[in-house]
């Protein structure tokens, strides 16, 4: 992490796949440049010693918050399905995950 990092087109292709996004070759090149520029800015954190510092994931230090009522209102089936692109028998129709080669 100490030397300047360059994103390659292959790096971008890999994270595009992780992000479930399809990019054109031109976009892959564009993002490789953008990511390299962004990393230049974020690598300044190396200047700070954080050896004995704990992470703060959440600023108000709340833990284990539970809802205090038993019954809550939820969406009806009709409401839940209202924005779906495709439904069948009152259920969402999903796309297959085994055919696209990424499974």
């Amino acid at each position: 992490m100490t030397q300047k990092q360059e994103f390659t087109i292959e790096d971008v292709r890999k994270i595009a796949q992780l992000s479930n996004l399809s990019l054109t070759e031109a976009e892959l090149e564009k993002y490789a440049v953008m990511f390299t520029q962004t990393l230049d800015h974020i690598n300044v954190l190396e200047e700070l010693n954080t050896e004995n510092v704990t992470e703060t994931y959440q600023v108000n230090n709340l833990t284990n918050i539970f809802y205090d009522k038993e019954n809550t209102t939820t969406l009806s089936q009709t409401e839940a399905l209202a924005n779906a692109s495709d439904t069948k028998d009152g259920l969402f129709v999903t796309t297959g995950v085994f055919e696209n080669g990424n499974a």
Partner: protein
Amino acid sequence: MHNKNLNELTIVESLTLLKEGKISSVELTKACLDQIDKYDNKIKAYITVTRDLALEQAQTADAQIQQLGINAWDSQPLLGIPYSCKDNFSTKGIETTASSNILKGYIPPYESTVTQKLKDAGAILLGKTNMDAFAHGSSTETSDFFTTKNPWNVSTTPGGSSGGTAAAVAANMCIFGIGSETAGSIRGPAAWCGITGLKPSYGRVSRYGVIAMASSTDSPGPLAKTAQDCALIANIIAGKDNLDATTADSPVENYLHSTDHYSLKTLKIGIPKQYINIELEDGVRTKIEDTIAFLKDYGVTFKELDMLDTKYSIAVYTILQRSEVSSNLARLDGIRYGQTRDSFGTEARNRMMLGAYTLSAGYYDAYYAKAQKVRTLIIEDFAKAFKEVDLILAPTMPNLAPKVGISESSPLFGELADVLQEPSSIAGLPAVAVPCGTYNGLPVSIQFIGPRLSEELVLAAGIEYQKINTHHLNFPDLERTTNV
């Protein structure tokens, strides 16, 4: 207030006239809708205008006022007041897009807590305002639909991401507005549009139903014509919410009475040299120096502070924001709602992919975990500062509203523009941004930043500041600015 058009009124002024029976909610609402008709084709603040619904709600409000008289406001403190709302707040039955193509056509089946509370308080929704898509930006230029223009000069940006709301307030196309800030998205556009914005502490206002950007810093809040109006809105929207487990349980003060408890003259205010000794545009520096001199004359005690370099906050924010975005936007699959992932714009793709990288095995410790450790250092840095002073004063933005098109110049435009807001956002602190003058016809703003959950203190500072000067009374002359 007699020489003002109705749409130019503040909330407090509107309530006075409504209570005196001198105006009706329908008249007030129509005045705002007329202003939208007249100028929004140039400003482009609104994505959706809920005209019929607004007029219907205004009629209902007038009927309640007719029936209950002054008592109508006991349970509905904002009865009859029309407002604009950023399009990332879910509004049941009203299209909510977060200015993104992927959510185009999405009709939420539920209401966000903030808009529900406003509805319960009697406020009237005029429409949903433009923003950077998913709030990813500081100019509204990453909106997948169109760019909002700054009412002070339509060749400049209103800022963002709550730029549509800020422009709507500055152009008097509503009485007040609602936005959200992750790091700068309320204060930045409030500054560039010459209005007042409150960025509440993280967890003070519920995020339920707000389309998530970075869940560990997202903070909904008001953009309004005065700090007093911001206090009135905060009274309604702040508080614990069972639907958002990160909301703070501590009691909500009556922010309208904040000046009873604090006075600028007895507060010690810190000015971090790291917030001043940066590249401030000439006009901004002049106005900030004038403001500090003005406040010194008024009797405020200042102390210079030595804090962490803001460049670390830019880095921390960039990592946390992209990591959380990659997680939050992963849920959009086009199956349950919205369009397919091909519809994501350039900026959303940029952020999701970089976030996937900083969270991925082998890089998590180097980026995400490291950023969370530096966040601890930033929080400690503020804690140290607040042992020495009560409040921090700083410029809100380092520059005046730049020309439209600015965001194309750098993949980190927003992060660099919001440099003076990122440290306090990462630490979850509240701040009020107030206008402190104009330079070359564009507004300049200062911000008061306080310790966590010190909304009462920062609002008191903002309210008192506006009692001793008139900068917040300046509004753009739209007849002139939109005819260029």
